[in-house]
């Protein structure tokens, strides 16, 4: 029997950035980069483990908007075309570096192999459907796949209308069911944003657990007996798992975290910015905007502008050392905790999935090393998902957690400040109008039903927490404001058309093609 459990949770999410109107829409590249650098490398790591007969348990949260993009035929074709075009570049680079910059040649070969492999996998092995590829690992018993709110709405700030929370979650769960056959056991609350009472909506929809940031559990009342090392049970009976600080810090922290290691790949030195414009032109945005190619030849090196060439072998070695260090720390931590607890401790380590591979290039290999080491090099703890833990330990302490999030300063400030507070007046009023429409038009059919469903999609898309987040970060702000404005305007026109009974069908058809998320959405979710 292990003394306790480590629960690694990867939350994969991107906002819905699908733009049929423009084949080279800049923001769609977020998706392409995440596929090449995160989702495929994670799948590859899982396959390596599977092939070596190493069973594991991880939790993966796939946001509905990400699943919708990963299964969208237009985006699948676009990604494949993008990959097909960009994979020429590492081949050219292999020749160029051999001629001109031999110290980078080895690294260029690595990229050539990676891009070719990504292409083969995406096109042939996965047949362009990464949701299905991940599902296979759930079916094999290696992953517990959960989801989050429909468009990653930040629930504590939408909650004035309880209907908005229910619609975000119900739509997400129905969409999950479409891909996985049943509802998930757990839910990732977007940004870990929780407000007391929201758990009742989860309960009503059959969800057994969700996650909170560390203080979300530590500040719960009454004071939780085991701190964050065992789940607590909300008044509704839904369980909340709290994030472990130590394991978070080792991976996330700018100061102490692994990703800043000098041997690891430097994120900011993409060849798109270093090489001659005419040479790089076919692989960047057609308007000549230099965008990341994914080929980055340098390592972090140190706190300096001067960067040394990246040496894949050394980085791999370092990832192995860091995996060993992470495991060692968890062994100590869990053994210590187990000594003081009358039930097995669970250490919950949640991360944004895109940290692995996209930002921290070596992240997927690190994870693979970690899983191997946990299996063979220690016997203090096992990997487990929250669902697994609740089967072993269904009775947990009743507590009421306070409102909290895992954002800056721990509450709602990142999504409610001078840069983005203007959106809530609109989001709340639109939700009221949506409820009004749903209540006045039950059982609608034909074009009216289509308009009502499209209004629901527009409202959900406007509610995506990403827009407020981007407005606060200060980059791509225009895009986030435009998306918010567009979805609000689209909703308002739909509302006007529905109320007046004069629906502009051509316009509606155009919208259905543009904002095609959740094809089966049902406006009556807002009743």
């Amino acid at each position: 029997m292990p003394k306790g459990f480590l629960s690694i949770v990867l939350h994969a999410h991107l906002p819905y950035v699908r733009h049929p109107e423009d084949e080279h829409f800049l923001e769609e590249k977020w998706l392409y980069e995440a596929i090449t650098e995160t989702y495929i490398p994670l799948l590859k790591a899982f396959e390596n483990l599977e092939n070596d007969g190493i069973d594991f348990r991880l939790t993966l949260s796939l946001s509905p908007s990400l699943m919708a993009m990963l299964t969208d035929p237009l985006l699948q074709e676009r990604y494949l075309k993008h990959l097909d075009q960009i994979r020429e570049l590492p081949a050219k680079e292999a020749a160029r570096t051999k001629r001109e910059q031999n110290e980078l040649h080895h690294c260029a070969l690595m990229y050539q192999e990676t891009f070719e492999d990504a292409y083969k996998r995406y096109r042939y092995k996965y047949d362009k459907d990464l949701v299905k590829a991940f599902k296979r690992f759930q079916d094999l018993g290696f992953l517990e796949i959960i989801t989050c709110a429909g468009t990653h709405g930040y629930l504590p700030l939408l909650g004035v209308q309880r209907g908005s929370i229910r619609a975000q979650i119900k739509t997400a769960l129905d969409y999950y069911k479409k891909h996985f056959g049943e509802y998930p056991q757990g839910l990732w609350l977007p940004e870990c944003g929780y407000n007391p009472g929201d758990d009742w909506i989860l309960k009503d929809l059959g969800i057994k657990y969700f996650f909170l940031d560390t203080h979300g559990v530590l500040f719960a009342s009454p004071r939780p007996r085991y701190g964050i090392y065992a789940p607590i049970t909300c008044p509704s009976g839904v369980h909340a798992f709290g994030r472990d600080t130590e394991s978070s810090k080792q991976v996330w922290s700018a100061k102490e975290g692994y990703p800043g290691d000098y041997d690891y790949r430097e994120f900011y030195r993409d060849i798109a910015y270093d090489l001659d414009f005419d040479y790089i032109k076919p692989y960047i945005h057609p308007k000549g905007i230099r965008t990341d190619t994914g080929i980055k030849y340098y390592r972090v090196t140190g706190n300096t502008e001067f960067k040394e060439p990246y040496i894949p072998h050394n980085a791999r070695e370092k990832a192995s050392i860091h995996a060993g260090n992470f495991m060692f720390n968890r062994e100590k931590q869990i053994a210590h905790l187990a000594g003081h607890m009358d039930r097995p401790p669970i250490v919950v380590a949640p991360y944004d999935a895109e940290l692995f591979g996209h930002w921290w290039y070596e992240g997927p290999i690190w994870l693979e090393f970690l899983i191997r080491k946990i299996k063979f090099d220690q016997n203090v703890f096992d990997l487990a998902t929250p669902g697994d833990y609740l089967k072993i330990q269904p009775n947990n302490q009743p507590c009421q957690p306070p409102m909290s999030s895992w954002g800056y300063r721990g509450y709602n400030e990142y999504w409610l400040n001078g840069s983005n507070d203007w959106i809530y007046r609109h989001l709340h009023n639109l939700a009221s109008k949506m409820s009004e429409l749903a209540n006045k038009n039950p059982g609608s059919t034909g074009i009216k039903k289509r308009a009502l469903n499209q209004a629901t999609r527009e409202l959900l898309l406007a509610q995506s927490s990403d827009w407020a987040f981007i407005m606060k970060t200060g980059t791509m702000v225009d895009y986030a404001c435009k998306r918010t404005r567009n979805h609000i305007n689209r909703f308002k026109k739909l509302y006007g058309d529905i109320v007046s009974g004069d629906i502009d069908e051509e316009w509606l058809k155009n919208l259905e093609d543009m904002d095609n998320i959740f094809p089966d959405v049902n406006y009556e979710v807002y009743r």
Partner: protein
Amino acid sequence: MIETIIFAGIIIAIIAVATFRFYSNPKQPLKKPEKQSGEAVPGDDEPLLERYDKDQIVLMVRDPEWLYAYWEITATKQKQLSQQLGNLWQSSSPALRIYEVNQNNGHNNEIFFDIKVNEGTRNWYIHVGKPNQSFFIDLGRLLSDGSFLPILRSNLVTTPSNSFSQEIDPQWPPVEAIWAMLREQDYLDEFYGSLESAKER
């Protein structure tokens, strides 16, 4: 920080007033939107009107110390009030009255404080400085005789806790060895929540 927020609030308020004045022609016919250049869907980039023809005040929680409110008073309501109050309206000024809800001490709602706001302002950040406390607010007018005329009442909100609970469940007494360890951690000093913040390093 607070100054910045208030300043931002004022700027937004100015823009809001300007927008309101610009678009406040009430019976504008609904035109079929025409596609402007760069619009994926006709009507997409219409500027957003900050009014919904609804008298409302909505209160939100930012964190254990701060609330945020936005509101709208329709032209109809405004006219009705100014007719009702006559000269008093001219000399009155808009204000927010913040109430604490205390269920435990016998009488329910206590006036916490008032904030004078500018004419035409439509949102405000309110420093309450009280975690674990329920509040609601009234938007009204401070009259020249010092009295407060409420116009709209908000929803009720509760600020979150920012410390360990003092309540102990005797069936679940905290494990001191664990809590000693947790107290030493700086879990509220650094945030690792979002990828974008990680990138800002």
